[in-house]
């Protein structure tokens, strides 16, 4: 027998399910896959697949897109119980956060509260370092007081793990659960859920308020299935808020067509403009590294940073570029303390910490450090910015690593590439655009510390 609390707003894959007799008639049962002539369409992740590629020997079909959550097979059903909102309505505010919002943040915060209260879909476009999380607090406070179920989801585990303690600290009395792929703790029914967007596939009409952070991040932008998941995971009447620093074309298109309302926050909370991207052409930089030479513009840029004793992040497109650059840097600047890091690096967290602690002058990295990770006073360079691994969103995020803290609002952002690409131009344009917008709105120069 299944605990009913495990089924509230969840969808569980099974042939059949039994709960206590009083709940049994309320069970919702949906076939897990829809079959058309040529395709099978998974009802959990929304993706369709040509039938003949996923036919099992006994004639059933399975979904190849979401099997990490337990394989959906066409002979199974998805079971759930309607979300009953078994949470206490509060008269006292559960918000223990004491900070203050700037007036621009406050305006966005009020728009967000209205979106949550009315169950609309909305996009908050806030630049890197704008203080997005704090702008959510008041809206979430009101939702929690009304006994609503709230979720914050991000495509990245790193972001979830960073958000969870901040929400726990802001709402100490509200039970919270964090859900992601590799965790060991079991699921529990809680008023506040923080999870990866992938985990949303396990919910069905659960949330009154659903916030999706970093919607431009891989894999959300690339994976329409996760978009479907967001729609499934929230109640039909529920509010959906997208947070982004670089809206994808699709989100921008919805806005132009007036199908999505948008709040803008083009300035950082400290009132300084975003460091703009300086671009320098190189000529066959990778071959130069192979010949153990630094491309001239790179060497010039680095000499400047080093003479000013700046700490910096060096982004390269691929893991194989890490060692090449590290070795050339070591020869050119023997005094410089550097190391390399990549996604699968077992010492990833220690190396990032050493950089934070000021033990290193330079961290050479692949795109993994493009977001989430904050260093207080840093310059940024990208070598091979024209490589296909860097999307406009990624480049804007990388540039956004510089100048985050009010004590050090400036930082150099230098991109090097063998050619200028549309993607690079678009990243530069977006940053100039938000700075202009912020200036027009009088948000630059109004410092808040």
């Amino acid at each position, binding site marked *: 027998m299944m605990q009913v609390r495990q089924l509230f707003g969840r969808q569980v894959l099974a042939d059949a399910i039994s709960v206590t007799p009083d709940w049994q008639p309320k069970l919702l049962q949906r076939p897990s896959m829809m079959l058309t002539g040529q395709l099978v369409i998974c009802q959990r992740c929304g993706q369709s697949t040509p039938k003949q590629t996923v036919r099992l*020997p006994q004639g059933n079909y399975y979904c190849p897109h979401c099997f*990490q959550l337990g394989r959906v097979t066409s002979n199974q059903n998805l079971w759930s119980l309607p979300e009953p909102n078994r949470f206490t309505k509060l008269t006292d505010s559960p918000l223990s956060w004491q900070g203050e919002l700037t007036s621009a943040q406050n305006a966005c915060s009020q728009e967000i509260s209205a979106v949550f209260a009315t169950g609309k879909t909305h996009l908050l476009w806030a630049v890197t370092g704008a203080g997005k999380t704090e702008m959510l607090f008041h809206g979430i406070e009101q939702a929690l007081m009304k006994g609503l179920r709230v979720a914050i989801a991000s495509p990245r585990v790193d972001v979830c793990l960073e958000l969870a303690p901040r929400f726990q600290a802001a709402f100490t009395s509200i039970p919270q659960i964090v859900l992601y792929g590799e965790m060991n703790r079991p699921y529990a029914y809680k008023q506040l859920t923080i999870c990866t967007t992938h985990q949303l596939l396990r919910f069905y009409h659960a949330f009154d308020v659903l916030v999706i952070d970093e919607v431009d991040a891989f894999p959300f932008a690339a994976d329409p299935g996760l978009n479907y998941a967001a729609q499934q995971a929230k109640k039909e009447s529920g509010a959906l808020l997208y947070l982004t620093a670089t809206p994808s074309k699709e989100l921008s298109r919805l806005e132009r067509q007036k199908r999505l309302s948008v709040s803008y926050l083009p300035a950082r909370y400290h009132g300084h403009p975003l460091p703009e991207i300086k671009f320098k052409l190189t000529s066959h930089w990778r071959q130069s590294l192979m010949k153990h030479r630094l491309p001239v513009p790179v060497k010039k840029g680095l000499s400047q940073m080093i003479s000013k004793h700046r700490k910096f992040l060096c982004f390269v497109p691929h893991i194989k570029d890490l060692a090449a650059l590290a070795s050339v840097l070591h020869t050119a600047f023997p005094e410089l303390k550097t190391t390399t890091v990549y996604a699968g690096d077992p010492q990833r967290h220690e190396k990032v910490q050493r950089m934070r602690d000021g033990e290193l002058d330079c961290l050479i990295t692949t795109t993994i450090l493009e977001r989430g990770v904050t260093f207080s006073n840093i310059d940024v360079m990208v070598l091979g910015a024209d490589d296909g691994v860097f999307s406009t969103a990624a480049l804007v995020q990388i540039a956004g690593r510089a100048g985050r803290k009010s004590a050090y609002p400036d930082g150099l952002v230098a991109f090097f590439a063998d050619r200028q690409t549309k993607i690079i131009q678009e990243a530069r344009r977006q940053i100039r655009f938000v700075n202009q917008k912020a200036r027009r709105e009088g948000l630059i120069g109004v410092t808040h510390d």
Partner: protein
Amino acid sequence: MALPMTECLLCHRENLQQITLWQLLNFQPVEPSLLCQTCLDRLEPIPLDQACRGCGRHCSTQLCPDCTRWETLTNFKNRAMFQYNELLRQFMSQYKFYGDYRLRQVFQGKIKREVKQIKADLVIPIPINPITYQQRGFNQVAGFLEGVKTTAALATIEHDKQLPQSAKNRQQRLQMKQPFKLNLSTEKFNKKRILLVDDIYTTGRTIRHAATLLLDAGASEVVGLTLAHG
């Protein structure tokens, strides 16, 4: 020249496949690969002349220390195609435990070629127990052998409270009772050269139990073929 873009089934990176001029000029059939070159490069094939004659592991001597130490089964030897490394672990996890049946096709061509070279009278896949079959929806070894004529000569026996293979330690696995029985009458196997196929050779107990059964039934020789050793 490139085929239309697909995605590598294991790492999900874009899988651009180059057709060589040689293949084009000679009208050689192109086997489109389901894995990208990066993943394929991580495979560690075990060359026939650098393999233990008993268990098939990568080894510089003719018999590896394990095969020298444990009493070996006469008339049985195993051939393992690859080292069971991180990539194959990931492959088997996605194929067997997550049940991504598409992956059966990745090694079908290579396995078919090995089977052909071994020239056996009967090709017998190691069976899995019916409960697992029901859950998974397929036998992973039979999946590898799609398009090869096989004989379902073996069935599993349910011993009480059998732990899953992965939960057992080496000692427990070695002491395991005979897990198979014959599906067909013994004369089917009499004086036959038989090829047994399994996914991974770990301690060798599973495939050796099956081999013992077949040799006892009168088979002249049993050869094992496993995708991996490790």
